[in-house]
């Protein structure tokens, strides 16, 4: 292992990590919002839109991110829509992630007893108040492990951004490898960089899961 080589390229990797993290988190945040909307449309059986949400989820889950990115980056310009690589990256990740997030939220919402919703309705809460104060807090507690798994999955998927010629971690490594040829060092640093980004997220997930379990709500229910 050539430690000097590794040391001299840390700034490159740091720059790549910053790209990965910035656009990854942007996409993850938008994916959560989109997923929540889709999930609520289905949960409350909103006419027409619930069908649209269903169709979108199946489309996004059953096509590879690579294809989705190519479509955005190379396909859309054919019909006159030209987006920057960064916009394509965030939109693509949102499109893919929204479907996974929707399913995670759904598992949470479905774990909340129907009678909880009815109890809220009996207090004269509006539908939105019911979601905000009663359904979502309980649904989130159950959905936390699935949501965090999606976050990690999506950040890893950002390695596809390299096809958009963005200098993310993957592309930094690829460039170094093809120019310098130190394959072992380059890949070692690449793995270490992803690990450094995602390990904290994993630990945070464990912590959140434990805290919510101790709080004693979520899918455990005592009657």
């Amino acid at each position, binding site marked *: 292992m050539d430690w000097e080589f590794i040391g001299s390229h840390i700034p490159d990797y740091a720059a790549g990590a910053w790209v990965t993290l910035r656009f990854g988190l942007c996409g993850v945040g938008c994916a959560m919002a989109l997923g929540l909307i889709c999930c609520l449309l289905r949960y409350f059986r909103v006419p027409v839109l619930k069908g649209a949400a269903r169709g979108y989820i199946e489309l996004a889950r059953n096509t590879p991110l690579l294809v989705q990115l190519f479509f955005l980056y190379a396909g859309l310009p054919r019909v006159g829509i030209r987006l920057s690589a960064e916009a394509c990256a965030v939109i693509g990740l949102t499109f893919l992630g929204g479907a996974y997030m929707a399913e995670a939220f759904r598992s949470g919402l479905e774990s909340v007893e129907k*009678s909880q919703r009815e109890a809220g*309705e*009996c207090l*004269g*809460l509006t539908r939105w108040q019911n979601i905000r104060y009663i359904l979502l807090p309980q649904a989130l*507690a159950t959905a936390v492990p699935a949501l965090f798994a999606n976050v990690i999955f999506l950040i890893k998927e950002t390695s596809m951004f390299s096809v958009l010629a963005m200098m993310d971690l993957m592309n930094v490594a690829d460039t170094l490898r093809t120019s310098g040829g130190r394959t072992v060092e380059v890949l070692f640093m690449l793995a270490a960089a992803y690990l450094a980004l995602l390990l904290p997220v994993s630990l945070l997930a464990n912590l959140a899961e434990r805290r919510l379990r101790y709080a004693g709500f979520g899918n455990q229910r005592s009657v």
Partner: protein
Amino acid sequence: MEPILRVKEIYKGFDGNGVLQGVSLDIREGEVVVIIGPSGCGKSTLLRCINGLEKIDRGEIWLRDQRISDLGKDMYRVRQRIGMVFQSYDLFPHMKVMDNLLLGPVKALKKPREEVEAEAVEMLRRVGLADKAQALPRTLSGGQKQRVALVRAMLMHPELLLLDEITAALDPEMVSEVLNVVIDLAEQGMTMAIVTHEMRFAEAVADRVLFMEQGVIAEEGVPEEFFREPRTERARRFLQSFTYASARKRPRDPAGMPEDA
């Protein structure tokens, strides 16, 4: 006097089963109506239809001078005036008792928090739960949870309170601590429709008893008469199912034996 609630000839079916088959009912201000009957007779469905948790297929429901049976999305305003408590308590498990109590009055009725909080403290004290305001629901016993659920409904100051088998999930020794709260409410003049299997409680609290069977009100009367001398054979058989007779305990004297023994 004009009734608070008028239920006119309502029908409700689930998957082709007629659960309510033409039920009519008036409830006057301050009246306590107890609905009894075998399971599956439609008594819970009747309560759920009244506050719109189930949509009726036919008929009308009026709350004072407003028809409430076809309000759709605006039903939440009516529900602010009708309280309901269920068998399964349905406290919100992620909120402390006090937050459970404040949610409806503060968010739905937009009342000032301090005012409701003071009232909630007083009501908790009255039902013997003064020290539980900051407890999480899962730390309470069933009887305590159900008393909290009653206080939660009462803090909305409903014009009508619906109680759906509120002691059915409780251990026997906790039943009376809950029903005593209900009897207090009746004495304060609360208008209530109560579904229950506790016959002695029904007799004590009811102004009027409705006996339902197979989706219709089969008999109706004041408790003194209904429980002593039901007019219909079906009600008689239903009430008998709550008494037990064992051959071991029958008198030896053949004269005291029933003819078919």
